[in-house]
């Protein structure tokens, strides 16, 4: 099996040890890091997303594949930075202020990273000013907001308002998600997009980046 396919398979199977070992071996052979990402990792995580959508994969499988992908990515990231390679886009992500729940947000962050995005993960219970600082520092095109609780959904609105007041709203697209969040709520608070699942978040982010570039 060609090396690209082996790495693809290791990620698909959630085998972090193999994914790292294959990445190291391919680097030693002089394979370009960006080739590994575009030929193995992104297609593998797209396939993981597809399997998740059609319920061949569930949360444990998705988490394992994300781990394998991240394990390989850790080896590539310093080399990518040095080469000046550009990611598919930059996303600042976090669970909004007052909300400590981060499993859904972590799944989305992993899928975005697997989709070739550079992800700045601010964690949970993130104040609006932290999102603003992160957008300024990273030059992100997208801010992704998560909330699990009905009582913290209003923090999504205040975060968007804060981006507005900071003069950043026109520079970033905002996508939202989380158990109680609906497309209607996303529209009401002025978000640019809503995603119901972690895998569809990648499609949404790609669409939003394309809109930014247009």
């Amino acid at each position, binding site marked *: 099996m060609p090396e690209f396919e082996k790495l693809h398979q290791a990620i698909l199977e959630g085998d972090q040890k193999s994914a790292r070992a294959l990445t190291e071996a391919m680097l030693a052979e002089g394979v370009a890091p960006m080739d590994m990402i575009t030929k193995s990792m992104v297609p593998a995580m797209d396939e993981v997303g597809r399997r998740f959508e059609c319920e061949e994969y569930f949360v*444990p*499988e998705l988490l*394992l594949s994300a781990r394998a992908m991240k394990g390989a990515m850790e080896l590539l990231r310093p080399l990518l930075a040095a080469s000046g390679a550009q990611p598919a886009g930059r996303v600042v992500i976090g669970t909004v*202020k007052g909300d400590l729940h981060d499993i859904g947000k972590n799944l989305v962050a992993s899928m975005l990273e697997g989709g070739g995005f550079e992800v700045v993960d601010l964690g949970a*219970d993130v104040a609006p000013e932290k999102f603003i600082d992160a957008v300024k520092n990273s030059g992100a095109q997208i801010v992704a907001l998560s909330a699990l*609780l*009905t009582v913290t959904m209003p923090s999504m609105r205040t975060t968007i308002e804060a981006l507005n007041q900071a003069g950043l709203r026109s520079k970033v697209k905002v996508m939202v998600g989380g158990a*109680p969040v*609906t497309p209607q709520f996303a529209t009401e608070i002025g978000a640019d997009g809503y995603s*119901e699942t972690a895998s569809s978040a990648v499609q949404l982010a790609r669409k939003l980046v394309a809109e930014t570039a247009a």
Partner: protein
Amino acid sequence: MKEADLPAARRRVRDTLAHREPDRVPIDLGSTSVTGIHVSVVAALREYYGLPRQPVKVYDVSQMLGAVDADLAAAMGVDTWGIPRRRSHYGFVNENWKPWRLNGLEILVGGGFEVDTEPNGDIVIYPQGDRSVPPSGRMPAGGWFFDAIIRQNHFDPDHLDPADNLEEFRPIPDEDLTWNVNWLPEGEASGRAIIAGFGGTGFGDIAIVPAPGLKDPRGIRDITEWYVSLRSRRSYIHAVFEKQCEIALQNLKRIHAAIGNRIDVVYLCGTDFGTQTSAFCSVATFRELWLPYYKAICGWIHAHSGWKCFKHSCGSVERFFESLIEAGFDIINPVQCSAAGMDPVRLKKTYGGRLVFWGGGVDTQKTLAFGTPDQVREEVLNRCEVFAPGGGFVFNPVHNIQAQTPVANVIAMLNAVHEFNGVRHA
């Protein structure tokens, strides 16, 4: 006591549990940790009904659920009564009550409730009230609930011992047993159906995995690590569940010997298998990892008692219903009709004769929290029309009523059930 001689509320619940259509749809609010009301809403309801102003007791400080006392239960027309839990989620005993303020509201918490406010306004809570160890829960500044702090301090993936994940499962202490027995006369005097949850039968409940009641938990305590272990460390999970099941069966024998058939329903497990759109695992994984243990627990209960077995699982879980029925569960909660594949009409038609729907009354994520009273009424009437015929339905919203839910909506919900039942309350 013969069924016919039972008080009306208890008979009503018994009828519906037996899939006989009762005189009216029974209502549960507050009998379990998944069918309760946030303490702030309990306080507001007491005010609405003109009941004596008093700080409300909170037995479940994690979700901050307020005790629904007899006067409030009567005002709302509640037909169930739950034995309060002796030990809180954070490991302290619910005795020696003391006042505490939650966002300005005075409430009562157990004497072992020990918290600190951090410089940023977050409140942290200590396991078993012991300030000498790191805190195990956090409420963000201005928040309404505590969430577990993940403490994965001794994790060595190459040297895992299932015994480490069993520290919180142990033989029921005599004082806990006595506590349950001592509460029963009050439940029986209430005339309502008696619900009990004794703990220890929640297999892999993600709220329990971080062990917020332990001072220094070992084993797999990180939520993500636990989820991946369901795929990558199945023999470990089996070893934990097998021993947990063994301990639980011994406890159930002792509990049953002490209380017999004086309760109607036993709340067994809150493990969530569903998400909004899908499931946490496949049916095949469920059947491999959970079914044998659920069968052992429910099987023992049905062979030795008249208790009905109550299973909670949020989300899109219709795919598991046949397996849950096979396991011996009688009741499913919270019936999250908004999740994928949870159409109430189809659920009632397919499983209505075999599962009691304890919940599904109104959506708490959208309608009850953010809708108008008219929208609440419409949804409640619709759900009652779907679920009530032939029995097998206990009215409860989809999960606990959350903080900041408008009281007008809760009243609209209750009025709609009473309207459906053709009775007036308060």
